[in-house]
Structures are given as structure tokens and as C-alpha cells.
């Protein structure tokens, strides 16, 4: 808190300089060194903040602006909804970014970007200057596509729980309060959305909870897509065998409205569905700050970037990464991928600020584990490399794949993945 008062009272430049000295790491640049501001401390932004510091030998000053007090992971959060993990299990402090890496953390959110003056304005009233800005604002929801969600109280009753945090806890409470014999209905938007297999994993987690605690209850998946968008055969096998008679999947169910008062979901072509617990994942777009800054140039939803640097195609010196970008072919909107964006962007930003050329041959992978029960897991993996002709990332032919079957060994690897990516992002 002192730090923030400091930054508000002193000029931002001298405050940042003092920070660099306090961290004892100002080997190049120091108070006059280049300034990077990172907006959003999720998988993309926190990784970028750490790696810009590390890879500039702690010479570039990095300010991370994040409204949440700590990092809460979306991956593994479905297990909190299922009841086998707690919020503490998926929560990590930002302390190491500050203490080990000298990142200047400001608990606030950005209300405006001035690309000419190269300043971000914060809700708290202060302004922070940058040489390069890294935006990792995640997704926000297109609530206007479901008009009933704008009625008073609707969003408190019909939850998405698609940003891990208070809604994760609230959805768990709704399931615990639901009488046995009730229906939990999960509405999935058309792709692209954050975490393609996430909804199907959630259906498994809720089904497992029902078997243990409410065996007469049902899970009804209402998917706007024609079919399961990720790991289809593996999820369908779990629903047909482990959760026989509990999980029902209906494709081509594009939700158009919600009546929160009666817990009723309306569709483009199908009959209304009423449920005891309605969990609606609305269509998504890039985080609000990116949209209102004019960076979401693809269908006014997603931000187009240069995949060598993650610099926006709409604004100079502004980089965008994570779930808010217009993805390359077969590139998922995932926490793992956002972490990879963060490192690729960090390397490019350090190069650009120190007069070097960014890497022309990025290659990175995605691994994604889904829990079909509290222990058994299925994965999907892919490797993505830059295609200089097409100027985008493409999967390497012959690489990648899925698990042959759900298994407990990958359940242990999935938790090892979580520990490692949390450390790579935050420690």
C-alpha cells in the first residue's frame, strides 16, 4: 500500500527508479532504464512481467497492474466446483514477482490507454508511463447476447464461474444447496471461447459429485457447437461409462436468452430448458480495456497481433497476449498458451528495447489436462511454430495428440503441471 501512495505522490519515473534500486537488481538502465507496463496478472501477464525482468538482467523496469489481491487459477478450478480441491489449492500470491523479481505491483485496474503520450490511467487516479505496454486482460463476457442477464440480480443467480474466484465458490454452494433429483444445466457458447475442454471437464466434475452426494440428479450439457469441441471421444466415453444415466449431451443448442427468475434458458432453435442450477458460460471477447482501446479488430472481439512480438496490429508499442488475441489456427485459448505468449512477448520486448532483433523462429507447445474424475485425467498436446510465409503460428505436422484413455498417472502429471506452471508464471 505504501508503494502505491508513493507512486501517486512522487513522479512515476522517480518512484520506479527507486523501486529498481530497492530491489538491488538495477544492473542496466536503472532509473532511466526502459519502462514496461503489464496490464493483467493472469497466466499471460504475470509470466511476461517476470520474464521481462529476468531476461533484461533486471534492467527494464516492470510495473504490473492487477486488481485482484492474488492469482487464482482457472485450470484446476473445476475441481473446486466438484469438491475435491479448495480455493486455497488454486490461489498463489504475487509476492515472489515483487520480492524475487523486483516487479512493481499496483493493485488497481486500467481505465484508459493514451497511446500517443504512452500512459495508462488507473481507476485510482494515477497515471503510469510506458515505453512498451503489454496487455493481457483475458476475456470479458458478451452479456448483451443474453438480454435477460442484464435484469437486476440475474448475474448473481445465473453464474458463469468462468473466471476463477468468487463465482467458483458461489457455483459450488448452489450445487451443495440443490435438492437431490435436480438438474444442473451447463450452457456452452460457440467457439472460440476460453479453455475449449473446460466445460466438458466441469460436467464430469459435477457428475462425480452427484454420484457421491446426489445420485438422483442429472447433468445436462447444452452446447451451442455442433459437437464436443475438444477431446470429444474421451469425454463421451466418460459420460457413457462412468456417468451413465447422469450426463446428457445436447449439441446445436445456441442459447439466446436467460430468465433468471425461473432459471430458464432459451435457444435459437430448441425448446426452453429449466434447471435447478443454471450455469451459463456466455460468449466472450477480449477484455474490456482492449476492446474500448480499439485493439479488438477481429469481429470487434479479438485483438490481432504479430506472432513474432505480440505487438498489436492496431497500435504501436502495445503488445496483446493470452485469451484476448485472435488466435492462430489450432491455437487454444488456454492458460498454458498464455504463459507461452508471455515468454515470447517478453523476449521480443527485451530485444526491441535493447536494439536487438526479435526471435524469428518461435516454437512452443500446449499441454492441457482435463480431469474426468477427481483423479483420472485426459490430455491434449500440440506444438506450434512460426510460418514465415503465412506470418502465423501453425502446428507442426505429425506432432501432438491426446491420451489413449483416462488414467490416474496423468492425474498426477496434471497436478505436477499445475505446480510447475504456477511457479514458472509467479515464482
Amino acid at each position, binding site marked *: 500500500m505504501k508503494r502505491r501512495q508513493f507512486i501517486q505522490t512522487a513522479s512515476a519515473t522517480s518512484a520506479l527508479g527507486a523501486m529498481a534500486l530497492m530491489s538491488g537488481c538495477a544492473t542496466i538502465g536503472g532509473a532511466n532504464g526502459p519502462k514496461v507496463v503489464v496490464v493483467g496478472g493472469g497466466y499471460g501477464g504475470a509470466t511476461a512481467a517476470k520474464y521481462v525482468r529476468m531476461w533484461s538482467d533486471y534492467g527494464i523496469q516492470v510495473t504490473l497492474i492487477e486488481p485482484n489481491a492474488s492469482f487464482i487459477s482457472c485450470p484446476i478450478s473445476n475441481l473446486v466446483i466438484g469438491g475435491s480441491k479448495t480455493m486455497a489449492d488454486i490461489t498463489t500470491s504475487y509476492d515472489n514477482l515483487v520480492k524475487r523479481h523486483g516487479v512493481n505491483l499496483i493493485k488497481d485496474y486500467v481505465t484508459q490507454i493514451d497511446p500517443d503520450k504512452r500512459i495508462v490511467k488507473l481507476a485510482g487516479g494515477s497515471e503510469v508511463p510506458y515505453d512498451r505496454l503489454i496487455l493481457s486482460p483475458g476475456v470479458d463476457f458478451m452479456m448483451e447476447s443474453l438480454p435477460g442477464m442484464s435484469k437486476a440480480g440475474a448475474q448473481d443467480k445465473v453464474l458463469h464461474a468462468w473466471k476463477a474466484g468468487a463465482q467458483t465458490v458461489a457455483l459450488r454452494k448452489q450445487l451443495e444447496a440443490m435438492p437431490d433429483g435436480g438438474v444442473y444445466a451447463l450452457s456452452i457458447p460457440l467457439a472460440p471461447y476460453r479453455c475449449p475442454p473446460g466445460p466438458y471437464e466441469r460436467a464430469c466434475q459435477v457428475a462425480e459429485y452427484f454420484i457421491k452426494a446426489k445420485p438422483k440428479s442429472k447433468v445436462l450439457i447444452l452446447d451451442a457447437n455442433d459437437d464436443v469441441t475438444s477431446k470429444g471421444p474421451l469425454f463421451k466415453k466418460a459420460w457413457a461409462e462412468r456417468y451413465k444415466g447422469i450426463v446428457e449431451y445436447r449439441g446445436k443448442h445456441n442459447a439466446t436468452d436467460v430468465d433468471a427468475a425461473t432459471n430458464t434458458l432459451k435457444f435459437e432453435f430448441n425448446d426452453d430448458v429449466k434447471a435447478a442450477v443454471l450455469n451459463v458460460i456466455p460468449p466472450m471477447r477480449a477484455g474490456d480495456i482492449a476492446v474500448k482501446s480499439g485493439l479488438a479488430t477481429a469481429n470487434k472481439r479479438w485483438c490481432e497481433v504479430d506472432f513474432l512480438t505480440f505487438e498489436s496490429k492496431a497500435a504501436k508499442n502495445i503488445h496483446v497476449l493470452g485469451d484476448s488475441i485472435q488466435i492462430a489456427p489450432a491455437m487454444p485459448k488456454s492458460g498454458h498458451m498464455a504463459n507461452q505468449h508471455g515468454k515470447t512477448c517478453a523476449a521480443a520486448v527485451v530485444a526491441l528495447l535493447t536494439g536487438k532483433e526479435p526471435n524469428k523462429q518461435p*516454437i512452443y507447445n500446449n499441454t492441457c489436462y482435463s480431469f474426468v474424475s477427481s483423479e483420472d485425467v485426459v490430455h491434449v498436446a500440440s*506444438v506450434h511454430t512460426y510460418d514465415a510465409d503465412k506470418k502465423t503460428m501453425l502446428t507442426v505436422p505429425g506432432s501432438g495428440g491426446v491420451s489413449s484413455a483416462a488414467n490416474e498417472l496423468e492425474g498426477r502429471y496434471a*497436478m505436477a503441471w499445475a505446480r510447475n506452471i504456477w511457479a514458472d508464471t509467479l515464482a
Partner: protein
Amino acid sequence: MNKLIFLMAALLSTATVASAQTASTPDPLTVRSWAAGCANCHGTNGRAEPGNESLAGANKDEMVKKMLDFKAGRKPATIMHQLAKGYSDAQIVAIAGYFAAQKK
């Protein structure tokens, strides 16, 4: 494919004024970025959290052999055989060299 990678590495090296590279050695910063793509599971600079293998300071030849065995399907795995197929032999050698040189 390997030739292509070598050619691209060569072009990249000649374009980089800072360091004189031989044709077969990719730019160190490029290799650092390639290796960082493994850190999600194997830890920053290869120093892993419990549950996954640490690569920092491991023997380069053993890492290369393991990866090439994954790639060729000689060594069974849950996921590494699928990931190894995404990398050229030259990239695997370079990335293994990076991790071998890191502090344990």
C-alpha cells in the same frame, strides 16, 4: 526439414551482428526462448517443482537420446512422444545444450 532449420539458423546467425555464429549453432537467445517453452512443465530454466523431471544441469547427451527416443517411439510416454515430434533434431540438441548449462 533439418536442412531447412539449419539454413534458417544460419540466416538468423548472419543477421545477428552481436555474435559470430557457426552455421550449425542457433543464436543463444533463440535457443533460450525455445527452452522457455519447456518451463511450463519442467520449471523456469529447467528447475522443476516436485512431480516433473528437472532438466537444469542434466547430461546433454542423455537428454538428446531420451528426446530422440520419444520422437521415434522407442521410449513409451504419456505425452512426451507427442511433443518431441514437434521439434527438429537440431532444435532438440540446442535445447538440451541450454538446459545442460543451467545451474541445478
